[in-house]
C-alpha cells in the first residue's frame, strides 16, 4: 500500500533517504497505516544490475524481522495517540535512520552448526552521511562462524519467552 513515501519516478542518482516513509500513514485514508511488508517501497535500495542471462537484479529492502518490529511499534504508538486526539501521527520510523541485524544459521547441534551473522546501518544507504558506501562501516559487517549459531539459539529462546509474555518480556528487543 502507498504511504507517506516519495513515489515519483527518478533515476538512481537522485534516490534519497527522504524518499522513504516515516509515519506509514496512507495519504488517501488517514486512518489506515501500512507497517512492515504491507507498505510499498518507493524504489530499490541499491543500484539495479542485470545478471549475465539478462535477469534484472533490483535489491529490495528487508522489511521483515527487526525493521517491521520498529515500524510496527511506531505505527501502534501513533494510532494510540490519534485515538487520544492527536491530529496526525506522532511517531516515526524511517528505514533510512534504522539498522538491522540478521543471523542465518544451519544445523541444530551446539558445536557442529554454523551461521552467517550480519548487521547493516542504515538499512537504506545514506550517501549524505556516509559518502563512500552510504553506510556506517563500523556498524555494517558480516561474519561466518559458530558464534552466530549460538546467537541464533539464544534469540530463539528469547523470542519465545517474549511471545509468551513472561515476566520482563518487554525488556527483550525485537
Amino acid at each position, binding site marked *: 500500500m502507498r504511504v507517506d513515501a516519495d513515489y515519483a519516478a527518478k533515476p538512481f542518482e537522485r534516490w534519497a533517504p527522504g524518499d522513504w516513509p516515516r509515519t506509514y500513514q496512507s495519504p488517501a485514508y488517514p486512518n489506515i497505516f501500512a507497517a512492515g511488508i504491507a507498505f510499498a517501497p518507493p524504489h530499490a535500495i541499491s543500484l539495479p544490475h542485470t545478471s549475465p542471462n*539478462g535477469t534484472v537484479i533490483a535489491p529490495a529492502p528487508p522489511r521483515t524481522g527487526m525493521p517491521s518490529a520498529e515500524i510496527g511499534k511506531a505505527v501502534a504508538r501513533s494510532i494510540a495517540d490519534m485515538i487520544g486526539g492527536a491530529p496526525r501521527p506522532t511517531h516515526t520510523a524511517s528505514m533510512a535512520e534504522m539498522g*538491522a541485524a540478521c543471523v542465518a544459521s544451519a544445523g541444530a547441534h551446539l*558445536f557442529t552448526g554454523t551461521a552467517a551473522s550480519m548487521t547493516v546501518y542504515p538499512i537504506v544507504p545514506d550517501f549524505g552521511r556516509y559518502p563512500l558506501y552510504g553506510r556506517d*562501516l563500523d*556498524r555494517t559487517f558480516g561474519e561466518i562462524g559458530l558464534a552466530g549459531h*549460538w546467537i541464533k539459539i539464544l534469540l530463539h529462546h528469547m523470542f519465545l519467552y517474549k511471545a509468551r509474555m513472561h515476566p520482563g518480556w518487554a525488556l527483550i528487543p525485537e
Partner: protein
Amino acid sequence: MTVPNPPMPRADGPASADRSSPGHHEAKVTAATAPYVTRPTRWTRFTRTFVPWQLWRFARINVKMIRIIRSSRT
C-alpha cells in the same frame, strides 16, 4: 581499522563475451579475476569452529547487535 575495498568494476564495461547472441553478456567479475573477492584461508576456516575464539566473537557480535538495536529505537 576498516580498509575500504578497491572500487568495483563497472557492470557496463567492455564486453569480452561470446557476441554471437545479441542478448548475451558474460560476467565481468568472477572470484578468479576480482582482487577484492576474498577467499577464506585455512586459518580463517579453523577459527570459525575454534570454540575459545568463537566465545570471544559471540560477545563481540552481541555488543554490535545491541548497538544496532539501540541506534534503531523509534
